[in-house]
């Protein structure tokens, strides 16, 4: 071979190596080095610290960043769903930008190709802006509506952080192995990863990792790992984050000239809807039961296909026709039968669903064996 040939081709090879290294540097370095970057903490200490940190000023510190959500649930190919459709979140990768100033100052932007939707909350006023329709919607949130929907989490004022942590872990310990990793990094920041691994054999979930910022204890990432898969099946978290107060103009919105302006009060509508839904839910809940417990729990709900097709939320203008979606999902279902009867089984990485011919829907984060076992429990 000619003199220097290897030397010459070494240049592009080295370039490729450097570029590949730069792309994969983050995870590779994190995985290779493995050195503790944060002081070690037990799960209890970590939770206590987190609760303490977040209850200081009554909430999260001001921050802004990019949140990426990635799902590879192993779903059958979905019919073309619009970018803004919630269904599109079930597959692929999505990004939103978040600016958080205070509890009542928030901007969430979802940038898409030459379009952008924005939700801007400032005090009691909120705007929803959709550039594709050139529409600005003024959302007025009814004062009452907010309180009702506050989550029934333990109030930080009720308990000391240590107690909160103890309680949470006490409930969790029965079915879950909990550990803490202190060597991980999210969005370039060292984080504690709280790892929850189901003890149940039949669970499809390998573990759930919740990353808490090492400094502010803000949750930065949630990952759900399915059994037998090295990549998370579902992941949502920051790819970039800064803990500085965002510029004030992020939280002000004036509808641009020429835009359609609509007004909507969500509180009332929402509450009304919610009542209906709640009623319906109660109905279903009456008929529903849970087989198994903890991670291996399987929900059993009376169900028929017709039911689903007619009940699918109307008024979903964008995205796929729900009927078509159901059809396409069912097409990939495998017919199964056993002593419990027969039905159609739908498998994904995290969730298994069984639709029995006698009109029951069984759903759980468990293996097909577990779900058919549950189907036998009448």
């Amino acid at each position, binding site marked *: 071979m000619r*003199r220097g040939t290897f030397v*010459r081709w070494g240049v592009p090879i080295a370039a490729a190596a450097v570029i590949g290294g730069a792309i994969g540097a983050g995870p590779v370095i994190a995985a290779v080095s493995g050195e503790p970057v944060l002081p070690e903490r037990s799960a209890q200490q970590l939770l206590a610290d987190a609760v303490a940190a977040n209850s200081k000023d009554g909430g999260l510190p001001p921050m802004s960043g990019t949140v990426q959500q990635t799902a590879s649930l192993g779903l059958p190919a979905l019919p073309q769903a619009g970018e803004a459709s919630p269904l599109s979140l079930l597959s692929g990768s999505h990004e939103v930008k978040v600016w958080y100033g205070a509890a009542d100052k928030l901007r969430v932007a979802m940038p898409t190709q030459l379009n952008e939707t924005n939700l801007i909350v400032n005090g009691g006023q909120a705007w929803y802006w959709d*550039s594709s329709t050139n529409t600005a919607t003024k959302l007025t949130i009814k004062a009452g509506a907010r309180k009702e929907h506050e989550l029934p989490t333990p109030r930080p004022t009720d308990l000391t952080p240590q107690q909160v942590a103890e309680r949470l872990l006490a409930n969790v310990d029965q079915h879950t192995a909990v550990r803490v990793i202190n060597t991980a990094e999210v969005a370039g920041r060292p984080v504690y990863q709280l790892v929850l691994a189901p003890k149940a054999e039949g669970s499809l979930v390998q573990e759930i990792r919740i990353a808490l910022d090492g400094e502010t204890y803000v949750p930065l990432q949630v990952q759900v790992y399915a059994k037998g898969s090295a990549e998370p099946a579902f992941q949502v978290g920051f790819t970039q984050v800064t803990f500085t107060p965002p510029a004030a103009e992020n939280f002000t919105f004036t509808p641009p*000239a020429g835009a359609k302006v609509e007004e909507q009060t969500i509180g009332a509508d929402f509450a009304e809807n919610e009542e209906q839904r709640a009623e319906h839910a109660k109905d279903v809940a009456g008929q529903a039961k849970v087989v198994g417990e903890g991670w291996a729990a399987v929900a059993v709900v009376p169900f028929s296909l017709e039911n689903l097709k007619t009940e699918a939320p109307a008024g979903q203008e964008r995205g796929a026709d729900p009927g078509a979606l159901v059809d396409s999902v069912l097409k990939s279902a495998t017919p199964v039968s056993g002593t419990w009867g027969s039905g159609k089984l739908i498998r994904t990485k995290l969730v298994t669903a069984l639709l029995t011919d006698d009109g029951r829907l069984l759903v759980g984060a468990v293996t097909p064996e577990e779900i058919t076992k549950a189907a036998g429990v009448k």
Partner: protein
Amino acid sequence: MSTAEKADTRAATGDPEAGTDAARRTPGLVPVAETMRTTERHPPEPSGAVPAGAGRPWAFWRLLGSELGLTFRRPRNLVMLAVLGAVPVIIGIALRVVASDGQMGGMIQDVAGNSLMLTFVSFSFLVLLLMPVAVSVVAGDSIAGEAGAGTLRYLLAAPAGRTRLLLVKYLNAVVFAYAVTAVVALSALLTGLILFPAGPVTLLSGTTVSVADGLLRILITVGYVGAAMAALAAIALALSTFTEVSIGAIAATLVLVIVCQVLRAIPELGSITPYLLPTRFTNFDAVLRSPIDTGALREGLLAFGAYIVLFGSIAWARFSGKDITS
């Protein structure tokens, strides 16, 4: 051991092989070997690189000027620039007609409301295929075209120097890429100003900025899209060093672009799309957000830089060692 040393050793030791060599070389003829030992010899330098300082300081720019003169005088290239300049005019007129019907939404609405938006709409169309075509033609032709015509051997014998010629060819393609981008931007800007009202610009985020700010954002877009085309030019240049048929290099580059566009449309392959070059082409819409999404722009530019370094080095590795037999 260098040849000079080898020759010395031979002379000193009376290497028998030298004698047989001479005998074989000149059967029954006057031996000419006497000159062989006294001549200073240098190892061949197939790379033909002109060492720094060997030429006049502005010689590089003279060659680049000559290259640019060829590119911008060539009728084919001028036609491509004219076609690309005409597209925004056509888009503008079409949008004007549609806009007067009243039914509109999204970008059409934006353009109808503001003259500057036509530039971004034009880029979003042209950056997908037409601009890559123009850039691929010039960059893909750069080495292969000269090789096919035979002029490459005279350029290298001049001696242009392989690394120097490759650099000149690439810079020429980059200038052309920016010329293409600037022509589109200027044509769209003029068309927009004639057909649509000028005034404050509404961004995708719903924020309104001044005309001056809008023009600045167009300038950033030109810089970004030009860099995108420069990255594509690096691929075309690399392919150009592998063939003597310029249409082959041009077609291969365009096939790559189209394949990438197809791959992007497959949702299952979502994990690789961030690494495909065309994915980054349309990310100039980051300038239309408030605040400007500098992260997206920086990532895009880093990707372009990576493509330029990778394919530039491939082009160099190939071209500097290539046997020019055309």
